């Protein structure tokens, strides 16, 4: 117990240190960027005294360390500053855009896991066979074909040519403003509102980006599962399990797979973090109003507060998921104390 407490506090302090480092880095990047946030806010033609006044209002006339301390104390109060572009506090914007990304990423991860793990296990069991080769080619394609290309091809076929896929965004224009926002997840909110047509519409809008993102992630998950499983199947305990008279299915799923599951947690956590970071390209192609799009739009417009805020959020997600994987690892693998 005492050991556990000790390792937990060690984990926590490393998390805090990482987050502090991340804050310093993003803040500095925001300040050394060769754009002037004041000009971005007031425009090129603003008179000199306006520029000076706004600069003082934004606190940019003070030395960098003072600015940083000021920013840090704001952060600790949950204040990420204002977005020049949306005229909203960054925190409000993130709360509005992040659920869209979260919905996309979670659905994609679920699909990728449900397909990727069985495929990887299947390929490992049939190592060297035609099935194995076919799965490997499928994964290689998922890994190497750029997402934007797949997205475009998908849109071209299912939206433009066949007309069976819905248009861009998260919902049809007729449902715009009809669904009260509760969780921010369109699929959940439509269900909560009891509007099944809107629910179907939300799912239809999700289908293409989710499948494309899932394919990309699935390729990675399946490849890692295959590699881990091939290793596990060589274990002596697999021979023991067979010598006990267990069926092939049981040997694979209840003896070899559990030893691999622990390793897969890390793979899944990193995949999920990658997806939550906002699949910038996918969100752009499908006009999905998520964090990736918010980040790129802000960056294009030199709106630095949202950029720093979103970057911090992404960092927080990575650190958080890593921590979660670490804790799960400890809970699930009896060998790790």
């Amino acid at each position: 117990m005492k050991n556990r407490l000790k390792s937990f506090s060690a984990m926590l302090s490393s998390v805090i240190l990482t987050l502090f480092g991340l804050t310093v880095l993003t803040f500095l990047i925001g300040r050394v960027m060769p754009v002037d946030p004041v000009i971005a806010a007031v425009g090129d033609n603003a008179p000199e005294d306006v520029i000076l006044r706004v600069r003082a209002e934004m606190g940019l006339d003070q030395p960098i360390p003072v600015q940083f301390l000021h920013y840090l104390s704001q952060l600790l109060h949950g204040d990420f500053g204002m977005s020049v572009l949306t005229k909203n506090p960054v925190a409000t914007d993130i709360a509005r855009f992040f659920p869209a990304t979260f919905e996309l990423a979670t659905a994609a991860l679920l699909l990728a896991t449900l397909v990727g793990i069985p495929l990887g296990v299947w390929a490992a069991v049939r190592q060297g066979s035609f099935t194995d080769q076919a799965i490997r080619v499928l994964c290689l394609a998922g890994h190497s074909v750029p997402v934007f290309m797949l997205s475009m091809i998908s849109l071209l076929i299912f939206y433009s040519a066949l007309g069976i896929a819905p248009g861009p965004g998260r919902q049809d224009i007729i449902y715009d403003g009809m669904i009260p926002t509760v969780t921010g997840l369109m699929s959940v909110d439509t269900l909560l509102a009891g509007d099944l047509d809107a629910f179907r519409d939300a799912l239809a809008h999700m289908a293409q980006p989710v499948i494309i993102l899932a394919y990309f992630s699935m390729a990675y998950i399946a490849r890692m599962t295959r590699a881990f499983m091939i290793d596990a199947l060589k274990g002596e305990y697999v021979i023991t399990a067979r010598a006990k008279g267990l069926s092939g299915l049981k040997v694979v799923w209840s003896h070899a797979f559990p030893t691999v599951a622990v390793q897969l947690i890390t793979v899944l956590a990193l995949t999920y973090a990658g997806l939550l970071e906002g699949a910038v390209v996918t969100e752009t192609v499908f006009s999905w109003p998520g964090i990736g799009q918010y980040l790129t739009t802000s960056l294009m417009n030199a709106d630095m507060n949202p950029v720093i805020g979103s970057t911090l959020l992404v960092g927080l997600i990575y650190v958080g998921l890593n921590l979660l994987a670490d804790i799960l690892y400890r809970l699930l693998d009896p060998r790790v104390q």
Partner: protein
Amino acid sequence: MLVEIQNLHIGFQSRTGFAPAVKGVSLKLGTEKLGIVGESGSGKSLTARALMKLLPKQTRIEADRLAFDGIDIMSASEREMRQIRGKRAGFILQDPKYSLNPVKTIGSQVAEAWRTHKGGSKRQALEAAITLLEQVKIRDPKKVAGSYPHEVSGGMGQRVMIAMMLAPDPELLIADEPTSALDATVQAEILRLIEELVSERGMGLLLISHDLPLVSHFCDRVAVMYAGRVMEELKASELLSAQHPYTRGLLNCMPSLIHPKERLPVLTRDPEWLK
């Protein structure tokens, strides 16, 4: 006859060619204790694994006869083999550190062996597992049942392995170097345990080892293997007075505490033996 092996050949097909490993082994085993001795790579383990059909798919196995209690192993389906493996023939592997599943509790692994062949509820199986652990002389079997393989010693792990393989009351026990991964003091204990349980239950035992005195002590008969063949087969009690030059050579290479030698002799091999 529990086991009949006649002219067994095992080989591996690789990209560079065919590599034969076992070249015409014939053995018979009833309700008795047969030891197989021989140096590493002589084909002892392969022979035992072929009997349980536990070799990788790409292995080539040929035999005039390979049978367990009259059942032809060569033509047996995977489903038929599952009725033999575990249920009628137990198989103890060398090192419990690798042969027990690292992420499953000891109790659940023993219980699984019991339940697979005897049915019943999970609770019944776990109770049976605890009784079995007690039978292999584990003190505090309840606590051990709840622990993981890495938490117990090698000797304890091998006891667990024995309990697991005896769970469905098999007629034959194959032990593939069951003590070579253990400390010398534990080795004797484990062997005594195996011998006790085998005699008590009237089982056949196939003990694979490279420890000659140990085999001559514990078994009824001994088969000496070299380069994929059986060199000679003799009563265990006569092993120390064996006539075959290979067996004599092996015996000569053993260091002795009573008659210490400056240098141990090197084993000489005669190609004539393989003709």
